[in-house]
Structures are given as C-alpha cells and as structure tokens.
C-alpha cells in the first residue's frame, strides 16, 4: 500500500474521533561502509519507515509513533495519540494549520540520480584508509567511512496539506591516529555532496593527515587571556551550542535569556546573522518546515541588534506573531522550533588584518554538550589548535581549556573576516571572527 493511502486511513480515523491532526511519514535507505587494514570492516544496508501522528482534540495535543506498519499497529497509533492528548493541558496556541498546500522539493536539485556503483563506493572507503595508513607516523585510521543516503519526509494533515521533501547525500570521513615517541594525536574531517563523484579522497586525506601531523607536537600554553579565532568547523558548533538564544519555544518556556531583548543591541554592530534555509548549496536546505509552512530567509541579528527569534505557529501565536517557518517535529517528537542553516554575513577584515599579531586558532573543542550553559551563556571546553603570530602557526596547542560567556563574547568582537566558508557538513556559512580577551587555561 502506498504511504498516501495509509495516511488517508489514519487521518480519517482522527477525523472520526472528532479531532484534527497531522502525520509525518519518514522513509529512508542508507549505505554505510568502513575500512580497516585494507579490508572492508563494516558494510551496512538499511531501509526504514516510521509514522508519527499528532492529534489535537479539545485543545489538547497528543503524539504517538510506530515503526510497525501492520493495520493493528497503525490503529494503535491513533488510539495512543488520542489517549496521550487526554492527559495534556489545554494549549490554545497549538493548532493544525489551515494549510491545503501541495508542496514538493525539486528532485533534480536535491536528489540527483546516483549512477555510482557499490564497487566504486567500496573502493573509495578502502582508498581513504589505505592512503592515510601508508603515511609516516600513522598508527592507524580507527574511524573512517563512506556513507550514502536517500531520505524522504511526507507530511499530511486533516486540513488537506500534502508536502514531500526528498534529498540525497553522500559523504566520506576519516580520523587518523599518529604516533611519534611518547606523543600521539588523532584528527579527523569529512566531506559531503549530493553526487558521489564530487567526493575527493585526496583532499580529505591530505587535510586529515596534515592536521594530525601538526597536532603531534602540540603542548599547553601559558594560562591567560588571548585573542581567539575558531575555525570553520568550530565557529558554527559554538553558535549551535547556544542556538537556544534564538528559540521562540525557549522564550515561551521562560528559559531563553534573549526573550525580552528583541530590538536591543546584543552583539557588535558589525555582526549580522541570518537563517537562510533556501540556500541550495547547503545541506540544511528546507522548502518548508515540519508544519508545512514555507520557509524564508530571516535575519536574527542585524548589525548587532536582535531582530527576531524563530517561531513555529504555536510559539508565534503565543507572542502574537506569525510562524517564521521554523517549526520542527519528527515522527517521535512534539512540535518545537529549530534553525535550518545559519549564515553569518561577511565583514570587512582581510586575512592579514584578521590574523595580525598573536592569536589562538581553535580547531577542536571537546565537551561541548556538557560544558556549556545556554541559559547563562557560560562555557568551559577542552580545546586544541594553534598559537599564531601574524597568521603563521608557531605552535600547536592542546590540553588547554577555553572558557567564557558566549553572550558577552558577541560584544567583544575584534574583527569579522570578509570571506565566508561552509563547514564540512555544509550546515552553516560563516566568516572568521576574531574575539578579543578570551580566557585560556593551559
């Protein structure tokens, strides 16, 4: 039976129970390959399907999901969602949108035909491991792989919404462990594309090897306050850790410290940050959010001023606003909000000015899930990177901690670089930022 038919049956049952609702059907196929010692160590082939139902009855919201697609399980799905709703408090702002749109993403853009053979993918996995393993000082390549996936989300509602998003991604990654005497270092990186043929093993291998080789000689530096830059991977990670500052849901829940600061200066006046879901070169591309609301570019911070939080229809309604197209809901989760892909607008600093004098370039942060408090903005992370003089890496640095308050740091920006870079996952596009006076312990 087609997913559409199953959706119709489920939503008919919802209507018959005097409720309204929406249904997410996620389906996917994936391939994952890992190499070890010149052989394929893991070869994983998967197919999955999950139904996630949200119902609203008498102003009360309930959700349930099922990975089993037999008729009894899908009937239980409706009953459970209705039963869960009966325990919920009335939420006057959460509604199924009167959205009858028929939406579909562009397959030619997001889901190009993959003509690469399984043999080619296996060969790439083996090649990456072999090339790294053959380099001097490489002890092994403990984590590596080639992954390929096709994901599809369908969204249907009792109001008549029908939306389909389909995308393909193919990626490779590697972590190399190097050893020299008593010293060791492990560094890793990845690449992602919609076409397998665009993955470049040699670029990945060279970058991973050079990073690990540089880090072998890493040591602590004296504790103190330094001018600090985070590389193209770590700067988006830092913003992601504190993404709650833009959450309309956290504002509604009373835990977002920015909830009363719309229109206030919260950052350096040179800083402009937007969420840009329609940038097709990014992997955070979204034509519509998980309520079926079409997305658009949204400035969050404009020249240092907080201009908007991100909202779904419920949090928007709570604050007397419209949804900004940032509703999130998975088959297993309730309605939330989330960012699609951040873009930090380039500044005016050329590379020479950006890296003038002494700086610490942070290339890795550890403990980001546990060492940060998004409510207060405080953080303390393990870190490694390079001590630089006029942009030249003069010493690899490891075993240090970097600590501070992220919300204060946004106002202590020294320079913003002119050139923007994607992180390797292509989820954020940002220039370099030089933060002044950051606490480092060695």
């Amino acid at each position, binding site marked *: 039976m087609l997913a559409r038919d199953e959706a119709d049956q489920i939503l008919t049952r919802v209507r018959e129970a005097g409720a309204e609702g929406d249904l997410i059907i996620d389906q996917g196929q994936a391939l994952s390959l890992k190499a070890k010692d010149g052989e394929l160590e893991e070869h994983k082939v998967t197919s999955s399907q999950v139904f996630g139902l949200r119902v609203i009855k008498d102003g009360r919201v309930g959700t349930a999901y099922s990975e089993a697609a037999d008729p009894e399980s899908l009937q239980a799905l409706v009953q459970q969602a209705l039963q869960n709703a009966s325990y919920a408090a009335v939420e006057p702002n959460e509604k199924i949108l009167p959205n009858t749109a028929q939406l579909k993403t562009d397959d030619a853009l997001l889901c190009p035909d993959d003509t690469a053979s399984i043999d080619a993918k296996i060969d790439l996995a083996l090649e990456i491991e072999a090339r790294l393993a053959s380099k001097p000082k490489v002890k092994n390549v403990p984590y590596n792989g080639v992954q390929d996936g096709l994901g599809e989300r369908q969204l249907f509602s009792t109001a008549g919404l029908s939306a389909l998003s389909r995308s393909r991604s193919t990626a490779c990654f590697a972590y190399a462990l190097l050893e020299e005497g008593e010293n060791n270092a492990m560094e890793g990186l990845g690449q992602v594309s919609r076409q397998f043929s665009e993955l470049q093993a040699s670029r990945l291998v060279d970058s991973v090897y050079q990073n690990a080789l540089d880090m072998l000689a890493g040591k602590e530096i004296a504790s103190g306050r330094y001018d600090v830059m985070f590389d193209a991977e770590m700067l988006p990670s830092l913003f992601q850790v504190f993404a709650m500052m833009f959450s309309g849901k956290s504002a509604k829940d009373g835990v977002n410290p920015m909830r009363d600061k719309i229109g206030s200066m919260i950052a350096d006046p040179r800083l402009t940050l937007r969420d840009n879901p329609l940038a097709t070169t990014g992997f955070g591309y979204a034509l519509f959010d998980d309520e079926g609301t079409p997305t658009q570019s949204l400035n969050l911070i404009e020249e240092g001023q907080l201009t908007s939080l991100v909202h779904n229809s419920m949090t928007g309604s709570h604050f007397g606003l419209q949804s900004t197209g940032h509703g999130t809901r998975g088959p297993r989760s309730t309605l939330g909000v989330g960012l699609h892909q951040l873009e930090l607008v380039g500044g005016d600093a050329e590379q020479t000015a950006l890296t003038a004098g002494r700086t610490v370039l942070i290339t890795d942060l550890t403990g980001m899930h546990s060492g940060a408090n998004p*409510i207060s903005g405080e953080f303390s992370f393990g870190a490694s990177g390079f001590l630089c003089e006029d942009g030249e890496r003069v010493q690899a640095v490891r075993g240090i901690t970097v600590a*501070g308050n992220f919300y204060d740091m946004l106002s202590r920006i020294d320079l913003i670089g002119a050139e923007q870079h994607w992180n390797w996952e292509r989820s954020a596009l940002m220039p370099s930022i030089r933060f002044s006076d950051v606490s480092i*312990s060695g």
Partner: protein
Amino acid sequence: MLELNTAETVIDHGLSLGADFAEVFVERSLTSAVNTLSSQVQAVESGIDFGIGLRLVFGAKVLYGYTNKTAADELKRIMIELAAKDQRDPRLGLVAFDFSSPEERHPATRTLSLDADVESKVAYLLASDSAARAASNLISQTRGMCRQKEQHVEIFNSEGCHTRDVRNYVRATLTAIAADGQEQATGMWSDGGLLGWEIREHVDPKKTGDEAARQAVVNLGAKACPSGRMPVVIGNGFGGVIFHEACGHLLETTSVAKKASVFHDKMGEMIANEAVSAVDDGTMVNEWGSINIDDEGMETQRTQLIKEGRLTSFLVDRMGAEQTGFDRTGSGRRESYKYAPASRMRNTFIEPGDADFDDMIGSIDRGIFAAQMGGGSVQPGTGEFNFAVTEGYYVEDGKIQYPVKAATLISTGPAVLKEISMVGRDFSLACGMCGSVSGAVPTSVGQATLKVDDILVGGQG
C-alpha cells in the same frame, strides 16, 4: 516476534552465501514519556519501535542491515545486497536452534504493557515541582520527565543460539532553574533502573524537588572557577563518569582491537594507582546498566577490569573475542536493531576504599571539590577526556570555601588513573546514557568520593 522457520530460512541463506556467522536480532519496544513544565503536563508521548537487524560476518568483516519488514524474502534480499562483494562457497547449514531462556535477574511488576501509569507519573512530577518551588523562592521553573521502555528482543544465530529477553527501563528526572535578576542556574535530580514504575516506591518527590532546587540555588551564587593544575576531590555516584570516560571506553575491545586504545597492549600491567580497583557488572539487581543477556545472547557477568591498579580484563564482545583472543564477557550491546552490537559498558565503577572525606579535603592547599559531575567525552586513541563540573566548590587550606561555576576537568585516562590517591567509603551508582558506535545504551557509573592529586581545571577565574 519472528516465525522460527523464517529465522531458520534467513540464517541458512546467510550461510549459503558463505558467511562464517549469521545472526538475526528482532526487537519490538514500547516507549512512553511523560513531560511536565511550569507545574503542568507538557506532553505525553508513546510509540512502538520494531525492526529486524541482520548481521553477517565474513572473516573480520561485519556486514549489517536492518528493516521494519518481517517477510523472509525481504530479509534475504538485504542479505544478498550485503554480501554482494563477499559471496563465496557455502558454509554448512544450520543444524537446529537450541532455545534457552535466560535467568530473570531483574524482576519488574508495573510494566508498560500492563499500564503506562500516566496519572501516577504526572502526580509524582507535579509533587516534585511543588517541593522544588517550596524549597526556595528563587526557583522559577522546573522540567520533569518520566520515561519508560519495555524492550522485547529475540536473538537467533548460526551457532544455534535462540533466546529471548524482556528489559524494562524506567527513569525519572527533575531539572530546576533558579533565577535572580538576569542570572540563571540549573540543578538536576535523576534516578532510574532496570525495572518498572514500581520505582515510585523508592523515589520521594520531596527529596527530588529539594535536591534539584538545592543545586540550582548553589550554582546561582557560584563564583568563577579558578583555573590551572590542582588537586580535585570528585563526589560519589555520577562522579564515576571520570572512570567511565577516562578508562572504561579504552577497555572496550571496539577500541582495543583497532589498537585505538592506549591500553591495548597493557594487559596484566599496572595502569592505575594501587588504590584503584574497578569493575563492570551486569548482574546488579534492577540497576540501570544491568542486563540478563547481552545483545548477542550471552549471559551477563561481573567483570573485574582493574585489581589494585593492575589491568585484569577488557570488555569483550563476539567480534572483539575473535580479534583479540580474549574471552567474551557478555558485553555485546546495542541501542536497538539499527546497530550491530559492540563491546560496551554496563554498571561500571571504582570499588570503594577506606579514606575519609575530611582527610581528602584536609589534604588540599588549593583545589576543587567537584560534588556533582555532568557529561563528558573521550578520544580513545589518545585517552584525552573532558567533563563538566555541575556543582563545584573552591577548596583552600583544607577547607571548602565557596561554590564555583563553569568548570571543566581535562586530562588523559592513563594520567588520571595514576593520580587517584584516595578512595572513600560512600559508594553509589548513578544512571547515564552512553553513546558510542552501537548507539546510546543505558549504563551506570559509580564510585565513592575520591581524590585526584593533579588535574587541569578550566574555569574563568
């Protein structure tokens, strides 16, 4: 959950493709979550997880696939696709399954399939919220959560194994937020186990609320943490995350077999201070990290990892045993049918010693007492780890001085194990979710309060 003849057909097919080993892992899990916010129910969620994991082993190579469909033809199709590059002469077919039912070590009564007990969970969480707000008028918000899961697993393999198990997990958490002007801070209380909602008989909403509120209020008044190398006393219970991160992951054959662990060639050697003895134990009744059988069908056991500083065992799954030559320890675990099993921890802890808390604090000129620890991570290849202190105090001249915030401890596994010089008597376990190659599995960490003589503390002071 899967017809016996379907399992036979599929495993026979795997062997006919030339696999050395074939396994079918079937899972059907019921899940329930009750969430409260702002003294009211925020969401009640439930669901059914169902799927079948297929593992084929050709030499050292693991081929793994999964699907939600139960038809033999679909399972065989995935096997054929998996083995496309490895197909070779057939192995001898399966003789017969030898069904065995594991000993039930962890009884549960109020299970999810009997009743989700939503009213009782809501009442408990709202009473905890009231207690937190009554404990301090600085408490501005609480988030409560009760999660319950009933996981049914059935395992078949080409060595004739056929077994089933049911695992009942329950966990309750309350987070309190204290606010004073623009300042906000959090505190948390959590408990859980391998049992049903009868855990309600052991958890007191007043204690839950009081403890979450106490931590939040302490953190609200905390000063910046001094930074640099110094001695640290780490509290009991979740303080054991230090051992979990610094050592436990490095003893999993997932890392050892790849020589990606600094301990891979240290069996029998002194790797820790002789004050340290450590265990990974799946048999502890109703504990969060316990199991009856692992996810490869092997009965669980108590494994002595370190005895008085000497490395005595790794954590070994089936593939790890083949690759390292060490005996299996019943440690093959996975989050769900979506993952191939890997060697993982269960209830992992440093055994208690006989040191006095006052002597530990009294021995410090300038250092930290990390009363509560948060999460952390480790890079097994180098042993470098970090973890966050969620309730900490500055110690000077042998006395606790004032609370500190935003502290991180970083070191390497081999270094910190040699710096543990004193271990106390107040042993306890705490629940956590451990993420690794085979997904997030329930594990307990534990220890008595202990002293690390020298570790890098990152803070803002």
